[in-house]
């Protein structure tokens, strides 16, 4: 029971911190002081206290978008084991639901963007659905490799791997899948080199342009949901990248927190040293991710 409470608490509280860490890392690279680590929390609190502005064009879809996105992300978060903690919800086949919850979130985010009738938001949602067509195969190939390696269709068992640890032939496929998943993570959470969350030009954005019209608490919900999405996908990746556990709950939890903060530092570093890819080159990167994962699958089944 304690473990479940810890899981839910981590899932609800920790995610915005990732954005704080990324911001701090980027500030450090740029030689600035940067906003405080807890800035995303302050932002959320501030947004919750504001009133909302709605475009006259919008309908219920516009309001449903953030709400559905957040609930899908939260439920997905309940199915993923965080570090050595088992997930509170686990059943055979939950990995499919996990992937499709993000599909549901995408349906609503993009529809809400189209609801405004703005050409820019339409552009953003078109890009979002296009790139998803390329990340989805990569994600499923990764899941296939992990399912084959662990012999389970339950995310908890699948990500924790077999009890005796992955066999030695698994290292190469896992490295490939890890690289593929990292690219998927960057694409799905709209980070550089796929999307630049800080750009000021609407024409070049993907995720940020879709939420231009959201304001106040609804915008807060969007920010919160996207931080949860990064947290959840990040913890999936961590299982592949650092499959270590000690067996002691508190040590494992702190290890997990350290790992996920390290991951955000890594993302921040990438954002600082790389430029965003040209929009027409993004598919190459995503296809490459799919290829890496399929090499991993090939290595397993050949």
């Amino acid at each position, binding site marked *: 029971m304690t473990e479940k409470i810890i899981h839910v608490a981590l899932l609800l509280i920790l995610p915005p911190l990732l954005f704080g860490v990324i911001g701090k890392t980027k500030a450090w690279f740029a030689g600035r002081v940067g906003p405080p680590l807890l800035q995303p929390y302050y932002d959320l609190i501030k947004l919750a206290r504001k009133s909302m502005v709605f475009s006259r064009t919008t309908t219920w*879809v516009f309001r449903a978008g953030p709400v559905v996105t957040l609930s899908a992300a939260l439920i997905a978060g309940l199915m993923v084991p965080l570090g050595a903690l088992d997930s509170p919800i686990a059943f055979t086949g939950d990995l499919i639901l996990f992937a499709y919850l993000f599909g549901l979130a995408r349906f609503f985010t993009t529809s809400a963007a189209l609801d405004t*009738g703005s050409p820019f938001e339409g552009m953003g949602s078109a890009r979002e659905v296009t790139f998803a*067509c390329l990340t989805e195969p990569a994600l499923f190939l990764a899941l296939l490799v992990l399912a084959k390696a662990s012999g389970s269709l339950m995310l908890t068992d699948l990500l924790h791997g077999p009890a005796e640890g992955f066999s030695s032939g698994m290292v190469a496929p896992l490295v490939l899948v890890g690289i593929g998943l990292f690219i998927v993570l960057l694409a799905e959470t709209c980070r550089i080199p796929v999307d630049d969350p800080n750009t000021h030009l609407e024409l070049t954005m993907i995720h940020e342009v879709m939420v231009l019209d959201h304001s106040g608490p609804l915008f807060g919900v969007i920010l919160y949901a996207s931080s949860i999405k990064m947290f959840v996908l990040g913890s999936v990746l961590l299982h592949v990248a650092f499959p270590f556990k000690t067996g002691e709950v508190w040590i494992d939890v702190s290890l997990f927190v350290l790992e996920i903060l390290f991951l955000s530092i890594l993302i921040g570093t990438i954002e600082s040293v790389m430029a965003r890819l040209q929009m027409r080159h993004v598919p190459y990167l995503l296809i490459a991710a799919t290829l890496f994962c399929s090499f991993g699958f090939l290595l397993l089944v050949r």
Partner: protein
Amino acid sequence: MLSLWMVLAAVAILALSGAPAYLLASHSKAGQRISTILMLIGSVVGLLGIARKISGVETPSLQFEWQIPWGQFDVSIDSISVIFLAIVFVAPVLGSIYGLSYWKSSEHPENSRRLGLFFGLLAGSMAMVTIARDGVLFLIAWEAMAISAYFASTVEEDSAEVRRAGYVYLVATHVGTLCLFAMFALWRHSTGSFELSASASSFSITGEMAGAIFILTIIGFGFKAGLMPLHVWLPGAHANAPSHVSAVMSGVMLKMGIYGIVRMTSLLVRPEIWWGSSLLIVGAITGVAGIAFAIGQHDLKRLLAYSSIENIGIIAIGLGLALLGKSQNRPDWVVLGFGAALLHVWNHSLFKSLLFLSAGSIIHAGHTREIDKLGGLAKKMPRLAILFAIGSIAICALPPFNGFASEWLLYIGLFRTLSPDSGVEGLPVIASVSVALAMIGALAVACFVKLFGTVFLGTPRSEATLHAHEPPKSMLLPIALLGAGCAFIGIFPSIVSPALESAAGEWAPSSASKVSISEVAPLRWISIMGGSLICLAGAIALILKALPRASVAIEAGTWDCGYARPAPRMQYTGSSFGGSIVDLFAFILRPEAKKPSIEGAFAKPSSHKSSVPDTVLDKLVLPIFRMAGRYLPALRVMQQGKTQIYVLYILIILIVLLLLETMGA
């Protein structure tokens, strides 16, 4: 036994439901109402009949000799028939109710009686197809179905486009039927009768003969179901038929092709490994290409038609997995693959009928099928928008609606090919089909966000929709019922699993009974998760409402990124939304575009045109037909019109045959 008689009565009532209207004036409302009431009675009788069959244990069957050469009148209902009868007794009657307002006899006096007649005949013959157990009877019902669909879908035959679609359909369906003739001939050759039941003689069909029958089955029924590349007739016919006819054609008639494949594969007891694998590959190609074509369409109903092809692909993947399970002796693959395929048959008939009927209401309101001319309908038709959103989410296989349940079963089945079970090796390569399925899922989201977003959201793109309003109740009710069905199966999929299991048991008696669906795929978790998703979304919405200043909602214009005068025409259109995906798939879609040319300092007005024609039809089939039209007339030399010459031909053939015979001996 009573159940069978009830279903037979239902067949008769449905088939003749349109006839009484001919006794009344062509514009009379009463005639149309009588047809609908007869359809309703027939469907209720039929549904009661299958309910009775499910509650009983026996498999009712009925045989008697008849005067038609070969064969006999042989009908029976088993668990497989039940699955398909269920959709025959649901979608057409809802379509008929919808038709009361959509195709009013007062507005279409010239063809509403004809439509009613063939609509009923279509429903009745489809029901007959699923219960016929004799090759000849089956083909008669099959042909009645094909022909009545032709007459029902081409009621607006004064338009050239409709006629063209009708011809393509007729040719395609008859090529398919020819394959079925060949298939039944082989069947009779190897079993000695046209009887379609698993008997001692059908067990003996193996090796090449079984393979030949299987291939002819896939091609013959594939034409009807719309497996790529045999789908050529489908987009045109669906787009040009009245919407409730499209709903029945897509929701039910395509499934008769699936039924044919299911029936024949249940009779061929020893499938080989290449059967399942080839069906899997065909299914994956059909699915991905179908939905990619759908994204490229500008026509509301053509888009839906292509999406039907995609769903047929998903069903074929399920059947392929089940066939593999049958040949490799893996009961879990059989149950999951077959269960997923049949559940998807139901689901698709629910949400596709919903979408086609809604499309009809949209066309009614906007008088156009062009997606890019619509927009902003959610404000004018809020209820239809909600129902359409439900249909779209369901068809994208997203939780918590029914599409997810069937695809979830299919995914688990495919993932289970990774590892050995009960001493039988896995086939990990097969699992990679799930990647195609994932791609189909992502493309479907793109496709239906495009459709829903362009048609219902944003601001109206043309004058067309200015006077749109909510459709009348008789149009909204069938759509709402279908939507309720989507939600119900989506939340409580475990209710239908007994029907699926017993159908799987009928299909593969040796293996399927060993495993139940709930053992390998805990469907109740789908209910739990679907319920909690809805509750969580509700809770978040309530929390948001409770925030201090949430009630202060300020209205403003959409943020225009600094441009002062945004206009509806500047919105992203459906074509631009799908453009980047069309580019990604340009290697199969072969999009055609006429780009505007800009010359001189003051450019003249120019236009941009783009389209995604059907590659198979326009680039392959029609050129072949044109070639045939050009070169085959040379053969007319043989047609001299003189009796003597024809007798000479007979003589020559006779001599050749005799020579062949002697040489063979």
